[in-house]
């Protein structure tokens, strides 16, 4: 849980600001115990009560504090969806939600601990920032940015990691330029390394972002040609709407890859699930070459 350690250390440091308050529902409470000992009124563990966790965050924000709310992705976002919608957004207040677990970090735990729909659910709401960092060293900077803001943000931590961090890659950052007219692949968060491997000898420009919301549509329009490939670590197609809208005035083809909706009912490891969802380098390459083959022939 290396990325969680980074989150805990970074967030604990934020408590120096008297506006910061952390709300937990038992998950990671032990890791925050030293912070709680120092700031008992601003490290709040409500027990295994996720609805209350988000309701409390809304009330804290109403008094002017900046809540950071943390749990497993499905418990933080899916179980509390109405609290997020009403106790934060409808009240006109913001919070920073930070999840662990991602789509299948704890694959052996089974369906209850898989959270592939989190970003799609947050995406039903207005004006949220979403980060899906692909490396632990991206976490402190993006956390600082969203905690220092006023609006709501969702930070999706994952034990899946790329080899290298790109802390400044909120806007699209080109990591491989295949030249004019090439297809554009946008890799979100920890999908980057597999996407780079999959396309190492293909005429594909690869761009990376750890901030799918707000999506860098300006960068997309500058980089995109007639073929765009989107690789996301959560539900396939989650960002299709935004990319289609951004390119509505151009003829283009779009391939959206990500976690499939089917419940696999299998355990194993995160790497196994990536392979089963076609998100390992081999699977990505198969999908991408199929998509590009009319142009390659």
């Amino acid at each position, binding site marked *: 849980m290396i990325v969680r350690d980074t989150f805990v250390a970074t967030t604990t440091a934020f408590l120096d600001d008297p506006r910061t308050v952390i709300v937990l529902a038992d998950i990671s409470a032990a890791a925050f115990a030293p912070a709680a000992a120092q700031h008992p009124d601003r490290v709040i563990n409500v027990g295994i009560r996720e609805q209350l966790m988000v*309701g409390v965050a*809304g009330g804290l924000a109403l*008094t002017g504090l900046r809540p950071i709310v943390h749990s497993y992705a499905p418990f933080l976002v899916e179980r509390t969806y109405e609290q997020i919608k009403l106790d934060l957004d409808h009240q006109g207040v913001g919070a920073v939600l930070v999840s662990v677990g991602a789509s299948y970090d704890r694959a052996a735990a089974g369906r209850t601990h898989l959270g592939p729909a989190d970003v799609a659910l947050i995406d039903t709401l207005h004006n949220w920032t979403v980060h899906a960092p692909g490396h632990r060293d991206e976490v402190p900077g993006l956390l600082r940015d969203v905690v220092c803001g006023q609006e709501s943000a969702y930070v999706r931590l994952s034990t899946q990691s790329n080899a290298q961090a790109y802390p400044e890659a909120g806007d699209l950052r080109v990591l491989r330029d295949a030249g004019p007219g090439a297809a554009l692949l946008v890799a979100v968060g920890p999908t980057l390394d597999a996407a780079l491997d999959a396309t190492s000898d293909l005429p594909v420009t690869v761009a990376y972002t750890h901030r799918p919301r707000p999506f860098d549509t300006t960068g997309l329009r500058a980089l995109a040609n007639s073929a765009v490939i989107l690789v996301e670590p959560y539900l396939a197609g989650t960002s299709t709407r935004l990319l289609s809208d951004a390119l509505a005035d151009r003829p283009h083809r779009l391939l959206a890859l990500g976690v499939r909706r089917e419940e696999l009912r299998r355990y194993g490891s995160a790497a196994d699930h990536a392979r089963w969802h076609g998100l390992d380098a081999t699977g990505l390459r198969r999908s991408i070459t199929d998509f590009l083959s009319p142009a390659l022939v």
Partner: protein
Amino acid sequence: MTTLATTARVAEAAAPLDGRDPVAPLLERVRAGRQFGANVLSTLDVLQVLYDRVLRITPATVDDPDRDRFLLSKGHAVAGYYALLAAKGFIPPDWLDDQGGPSSRLGDHPDRTLIPGVEIGSGSLGHGLGLGVGTALGLRAQGRPDPRVYVLLGDAELDEGSNHEAIAYAGAVGLGNLTAIVVDNSSATHGWPGGVATRFTVNGWTAATVDGRDRDALHPALTGHHGHRPHAVVALVRDGE
């Protein structure tokens, strides 16, 4: 159709404490000839005692961090609430004439971003107490011991499990600046055997159960907290009132 009896009931429910209370005519403006449900009348006395004698909030202090907070969790009970907000000068009485209209700030459920003095937007049941717990924690974390947080719920609203998350937690941590008021008109489909108050006291709250139409009983109940435990007031109202 509105019956004479209903109209008389509204007037009686809104009867002034001092003989000059302006709420009754304001409530008639909100009513605009419609028939009110039982939930409107059942909350009127509690609301009047709160705004007349308990809450330390005025139109001038709606943004004061040290104001008392009143959170209407049963957001459908707006008619008396809006009438009181107008009577106390939080909103212009003119707003009452167009409730729910396309240009109105007053919906069938309140929106805090549209109405001065309204602390939360509500409507979906079971959200106010969690928000109230968070508000009470936020005041405590900022070293503000004076303001108190009052949340008004209904006995049927207690069906929502989110309330029980809040009740158990607030009791466990001794959230002494929180008061939950449950207007109990026996509308919960499966009832609360043993009484509503027991749901609170078993979790460490103090509680008082009083006649919800008796203002002289409501006042000591609403101010009967002790400072180190959350407090519940169950206001009993006969079915259909």
